[in-house]
């Protein structure tokens, strides 16, 4: 869309006011997914497969149904009979199959039946009365093993057009892209390095488990309250899975206790509604932590081969990567994204990348912050680091030498618009952290990271009140303070104080469609829509002022919250503040509001550079992160404190992924560490303060220059920490997490 009204001087944007939902969140008043109650409410519980892969021979629910406290039992038979298309193209089928198993249980934790009872305890007890007969099948959980010729087949025919002949049926999508001639490029190089890397699956680890409260009557009308990153997608999916009309289901998003991509789909919501329809009472379903780990989306695990050619001066002559991603028992592992992002930071003449989407007997992967990008960056940036070391070159200089900039042909095809990679590298080089002395046993690593960012379907509505305040309705759940950013942008356009704007996350019945809060799109897309909606209201305010002055509308402009004549020829009138116009709006043409609906298509890609110091205990292999600096291009930081928060949070999640977090499966294919005791996310004492530098290279696709900042921050940490650890330990770590046993074993192997 045309963005002829780009702004660079701001009154409100860039300030750091208190968030509008702050009071509710520090007093315990804020209502999250599990905090809703309804009259007559039942409690649901879900029975899950103890097998990694098994045919469901028979489910006998009669004993559970006969129990006095049980009001409904559902299995797959209670969902829509719509013949969704299976396989890749049928995402509804995939989701249905995932929320309630059909013929087979496809992973440890796969839902097979559910009950609703008068109390949570009664519901859990009733699960024990359901008898399921399984026929165990061979299983596979490792990505390389799942591609091997003898691997058990998860589902025949799930592969799409892209998979070349002769591949195992578990390979369901194949991506290949790049340009130039990599073999010729390698021939030009002074040094060619080739290596393989492995990363385990990690979980988004939001502290709030999935929770919902659903009511569905036999008239086909329903209400759903749930913790989600996107209630319209929940509405659409639940309606499809239950065979009801989308608009008949009203979905309200609760406050959301973290998502990071993991709450972009549904798990328990259709089950609660199915139970409710059967029991004719509201049903609340709340996952336990163990259910969250076993049955909701972790990220993909990956196995990767990288080959890079470099001249003595650091110029990269060619790069090739092969990325095999395992995404559970359904298509969707982002092998294509990994491939497209892996070399995106570099200006390459010759590049080729191949990505695989591979199924295995694990839970269906879900998006996790820049899905697919961190693993690829880990592999690529590790090889570049090793080459810098071999050639005696400074790692930032080498990256600067090869850095992508405006006009560079990206590794994934098109040319870049204005981007900020070079600026982040220069800021990194100038940062005191980069040249601070290291103690013995410490190492320093750096890495770049890239992510696409996303726009997506967006609707925003803004209504002015008589007293001159404004209510803003957006449809993207606020996960990290976005209501503050929206209010700042609206204040900027309207010229009224930030505090005079109340931002609400509207439900599906009160606003047009909105895509999920994902793809770092909220401040970009809902922000853009907010600006446009506010401008729409301003146009009407100007019309009212013009009418009251008896001059043409185009002779009025909006300045500092007032309508003013737009020039000496327009006449001499006193400015009319917003509240002055709204005070009379009822009698001058009616209520004034503004709205905007579109799919903004200018999200603008994003880059970051991280510097990290790590210390390794050579006797135990234990790593401590001693200093961390995040440098990232935000385009324009609307609320800088919350931008910093995104950077810090991404870095912390990356530290967890790099050092200790992993899905551990036993020989039996069952997940062994489904509690926070053994799924080790960083605790407060594990981390240093995380310094941040906000670089601002405005995005040409947003009126205020915003680029999404949510996801890029998790792309560089894995590699940056691996580089720091490898320097500290004196041995290259090629497998994540770099847990103490792995580091100690590598040190031993190294002599």
């Amino acid at each position: 869309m045309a963005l002829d009204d780009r702004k660079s001087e701001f009154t409100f944007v860039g300030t750091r006011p208190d968030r509008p939902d702050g009071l509710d969140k520090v007093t315990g008043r804020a209502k999250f997914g599990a905090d809703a109650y309804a009259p007559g409410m039942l409690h649901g519980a879900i029975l899950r497969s103890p097998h990694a892969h098994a045919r469901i021979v028979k489910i006998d629910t009669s004993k559970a149904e006969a129990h006095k406290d049980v009001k409904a039992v559902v299995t797959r038979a209670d969902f829509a009979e719509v013949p969704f298309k299976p396989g890749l193209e049928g995402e509804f089928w995939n989701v249905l199959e995932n929320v309630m198993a059909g013929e087979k249980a496809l992973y440890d934790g796969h839902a097979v039946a559910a009950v609703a009872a008068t109390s949570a305890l009664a519901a859990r007890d009733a699960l024990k009365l359901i008898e399921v007969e399984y026929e165990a099948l061979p299983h596979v959980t490792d990505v390389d093993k799942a591609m091997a010729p003898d691997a058990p087949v998860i589902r025949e025919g799930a592969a799409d057009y892209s998979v070349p002949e002769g591949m195992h049926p578990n390979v369901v999508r194949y991506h290949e892209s790049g340009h130039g001639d990599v073999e010729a490029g390698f021939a030009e190089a002074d040094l060619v390095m080739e290596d393989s890397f492995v990363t385990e699956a990690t979980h988004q680890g939001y502290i709030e488990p999935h929770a919902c409260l659903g009511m569905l009557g036999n008239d086909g009308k329903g209400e759903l309250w749930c913790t989600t990153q996107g209630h319209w997608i929940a509405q659409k999916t639940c309606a499809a899975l239950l065979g009801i009309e989308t608009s008949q289901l009203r979905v309200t998003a609760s406050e959301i206790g973290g998502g990071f991509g993991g709450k972009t789909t549904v798990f328990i919501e259709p089950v609660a509604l199915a139970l409710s329809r059967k029991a004719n009472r509201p049903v609340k379903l709340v996952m336990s932590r163990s259910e969250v780990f076993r049955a909701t989306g972790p990220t993909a695990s990956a196995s990767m081969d990288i080959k890079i050619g470099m001249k003595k001066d650091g110029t990269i002559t060619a790069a090739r990567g092969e990325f095999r991603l395992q995404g559970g028992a359904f298509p969707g592992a982002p092998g294509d994204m990994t491939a497209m992002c892996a070399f995106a930071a570099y200006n390459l003449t010759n590049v080729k990348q191949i990505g695989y989407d591979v199924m295995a007997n694990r839970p269906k992967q879900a998006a996790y912050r820049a899905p697919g990008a961190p693993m690829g960056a880990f592999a690529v940036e590790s090889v570049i680091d090793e080459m810098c070391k071999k050639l005696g070159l400074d790692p930032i200089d080498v990256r600067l030498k090869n850095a992508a900039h405006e006009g560079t042909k990206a590794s994934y095809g098109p040319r870049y618009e204005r981007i900020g990679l070079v600026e982040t590298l220069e800021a990194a080089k100038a940062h005191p952290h980069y040249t601070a002395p290291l103690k013995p046993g410490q190492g320093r690593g750096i890495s770049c990271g890239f992510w696409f960012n996303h726009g997506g379907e967006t609707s925003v509505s803004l209504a002015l009140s008589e007293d001159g305040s404004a209510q803003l309705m957006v449809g993207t759940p606020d996960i990290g303070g976005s209501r503050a950013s929206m209010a700042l942008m609206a204040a900027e356009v309207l010229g009224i104080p930030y505090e005079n704007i109340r931002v609400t996350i509207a439900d599906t019945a009160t606003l047009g469609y909105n895509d999920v809060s994902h793809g770092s799109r909220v401040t970009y897309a809902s922000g853009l829509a907010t600006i446009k909606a506010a401008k729409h209201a301003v146009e009407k305010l100007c019309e009212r002022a013009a009418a009251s002055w008896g001059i043409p509308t185009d002779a009025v402009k909006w300045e500092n919250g007032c309508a003013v004549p737009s020039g000496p020829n327009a006449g001499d009138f006193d400015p009319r503040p917003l509240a002055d116009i709204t005070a009379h709006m009822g009698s001058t043409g009616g209520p004034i509001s503004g709205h905007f609906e579109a799919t903004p298509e200018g999200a603008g890609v994003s880059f970051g550079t991280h510097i990290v110091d790590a210390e390794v205990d050579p006797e135990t292999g234990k790593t401590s992160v001693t200093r961390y600096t995040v440098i990232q291009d935000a385009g324009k930081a609307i609320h800088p404190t919350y931008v910093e928060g995104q950077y810090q949070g991404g870095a912390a999640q990356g530290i967890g992924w790099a050092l200790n977090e992993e899905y551990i499966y036993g020989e039996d294919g069952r997940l062994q560490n489904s509690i926070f005791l053994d799924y080790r996310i960083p605790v407060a004492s594990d981390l240093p303060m995380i310094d941040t530098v906000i670089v601002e290279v405005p995005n040409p696709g947003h009126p205020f220059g915003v680029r999404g900042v949510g996801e890029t921050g998790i792309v560089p940490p894995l590699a940056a920490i691996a580089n720091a650890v490898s320097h500290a330990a004196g041995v290259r770590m090629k497998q994540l997490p770099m847990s103490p046993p792995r580091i100690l074993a590598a040190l031993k192997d190294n002599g």
Partner: protein
Amino acid sequence: MDYHSPASFAEASALAANATGITRFLAGGTDVLVQLRSELVTPDTLIDIKKIDGVRDITCNADGSWTLGVVATGAEMSEHPELGRDWPGVVEAMDLIGSTQVQGRATLTGNLCNGSPAADSVPAMVAAGVTVTVTGPDGDREVAVENIPTGPGKTSLAKGEVISAVNIPARGENGGDAYLRFIPRTEMDIAVVGVGVNLRLEGDTITEARVSLGAVAPTVLLVEDCAKAIIGSTLDDAALDALAAAASAACNPIDDKRGTIAFRTEVAGVLAKRAAKIAYARAKGEQA
């Protein structure tokens, strides 16, 4: 599940003796409730022993020994002005268990009766020579801590028996103890390896020592070869190396989600050395 809160250990013992099905005693509950919530163990009878008189007391006896009530929490032990001066290893081992919140509830006895080979307080108690008083239908008996666990999740306590007191010996002169564990994070993990060392000096020479290892075998081990490796030494490098070798040799660990056999075996030696140095420094009256 039946819930009882008896007023005496005799009553608690009788309740347990007469109960059918699974019986659990509830002290701090930091293991019992986790098992209950995850439906790993749903007791038929739960006997809350916190309402028994004196179960929170931490008492220094006339002979310098200590008697701890069975529901004295980790936080109460850490806050006690004297206990940590005598037995810093036991107190710090207890303090390592879980979070601040868990410290507000968790107890030595609970940690012991949970029967985990990775229990942090148990190697420290074994090294310190701690005993427990066991009250049963036939009266009381005193049992060395190392004789309580018999395997993962299993104890030597008979039906109707309940631990009613923890007895820590008098510290005596020139003694020091220490406990170290290895965890991948800085907090909140289960020990991958734990080492407790307790020793006494004459001059610079070690005359008595007890070394115990956690998380490297089905139960916590009291390793005599480790003690032998340092008794008679001034904890010189040769003694430390011998200690590490003896510790590693005593390991009989498993590969699991928390660590590998090779890792546990290696790190047991590393931690034994480090813990011995701390205990030695403490015995000499140095800060450590």
